[in-house]
């Protein structure tokens, strides 16, 4: 047993306090300590992107961040994406265009896609594919994912 560290952080605008051991990943902390289970564990080695979150405005794999590092940071997860009952346009398009099958990769893809559209509101299909290269889908439903992201981008530019 390692020493426990007291960490204060902001997740989706809310302040959280938790105790964690230094080997615990931010992913573990989100799911097991804070019960924010929307962020998924795929590989736990940074290869699949299922655990994607924003850390101080930067897209990262939460399995490659340790919980202690979250102290004083601003974290955004899938739970903060919809505003009340209003889905984010990306979420809406994923539903309309069947951009998901089993759904494990979906929260990570949505967080990653939002990060892209905030940086580049009008990406080419190639840019979307490269940006999402770090998000693996085990159902291999990539084409519908790309179409949903492109459709959401179009809608968001029009709004």
């Amino acid at each position, binding site marked *: 047993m390692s*020493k426990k560290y007291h960490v204060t952080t902001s997740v989706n605008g809310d302040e959280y306090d938790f105790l964690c*051991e*230094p080997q615990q990943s931010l992913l573990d902390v989100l799911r097991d300590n804070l019960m924010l289970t929307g962020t998924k564990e795929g590989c736990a080695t*940074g*290869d699949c992107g299922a655990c994607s979150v924003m850390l101080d405005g*930067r897209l990262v794999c939460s*399995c490659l961040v340790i919980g202690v590092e979250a102290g004083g940071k601003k974290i955004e997860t899938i739970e903060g994406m919809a505003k009340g009952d209003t889905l984010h346009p990306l979420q809406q398009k994923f539903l309309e265009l069947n951009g998901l099958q089993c759904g494990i990769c979906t929260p990570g893809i949505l967080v990653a896609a939002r990060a892209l559209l905030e940086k580049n509101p009008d990406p080419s299909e190639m840019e979307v594919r490269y940006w999402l*290269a770090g998000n693996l889908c085990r159902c291999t439903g990539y084409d519908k994912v790309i179409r949903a992201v492109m459709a959401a981008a179009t809608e968001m530019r029009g709004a």
Partner: protein
Amino acid sequence: MSELRYEAPDSLASAIKLLAAAGGPARILAGGTDVIVQMEMDMIEPELLLDIKHIPGLREIKAEKGGFRIGATVSGMEMMEHAALCATWPGLIDGVKLIGSIQVKGRATMAGNLCNASPGADSVPPLVTAGAMAHVVGPNGARDVPVEQIPIGPGKTSLAKGEIIESFFLPARPRNAGDAYLRFTPRTEMDIAVVGVAVNLTLDGAGVCTAARVAIGAVAPTVLIVKECADALIGTKVDAAAIDKMAAAAAAACRPIDDKRGTKEFRIKMARVLAKRVAQKALERARHVA
């Protein structure tokens, strides 16, 4: 299992002190994209995890003597977003862009890529051909080390106990100079180099190559600097004959292993192919046509 400690000092002096005083294995935590994976997979069991991201100044890219000073905790994405750095050292950025996913580059650092000491690290060949110097600080003071002297074998570095890379210095470069890096991987993204080649060359007013550096990754225990490649380019107009000679020298220098990612023969063949393409790309950049 020993107890793992996490420390996040706010000065280099206390970081060095903590590192030098560690009773067991210690690891520096910057981007964490290698260290955390190695811990997760039980490949390492450190006693101390030293987070250097709270030390002021380490996260900056600064202009210095016509070149750049890049702090040890600057992430790949931060480098890719720095317009002046991208314009001056595009070959280095070619390498950085190939490190993992956007998520990984959001955290991964060049210092980590170098100190993880993988022979296939994508940012290392172009860092070497750029003539970059690592500023190393430790219990016995500071020293500036050519980056190629940091990795000494797979997973091993020349850094002494208590030493930390604080920053890298990329020198100023002449106007008619260009660098490039390309690697071969079965997939275009999220893969590890089977072979990687970097070329950095300078032309004079008449288009004659006056200086060149060529480095090859993933074909030896450490990145190879191939002087015969540079010699094949220097004094020429980097025409097809010079590039062929340089590519042959690249293939001749390789001493790869067979592994799951490629055979010896394939790596040697690809080194030649990539050397040609990279030299051409570096040349176009030096001529400002690319």
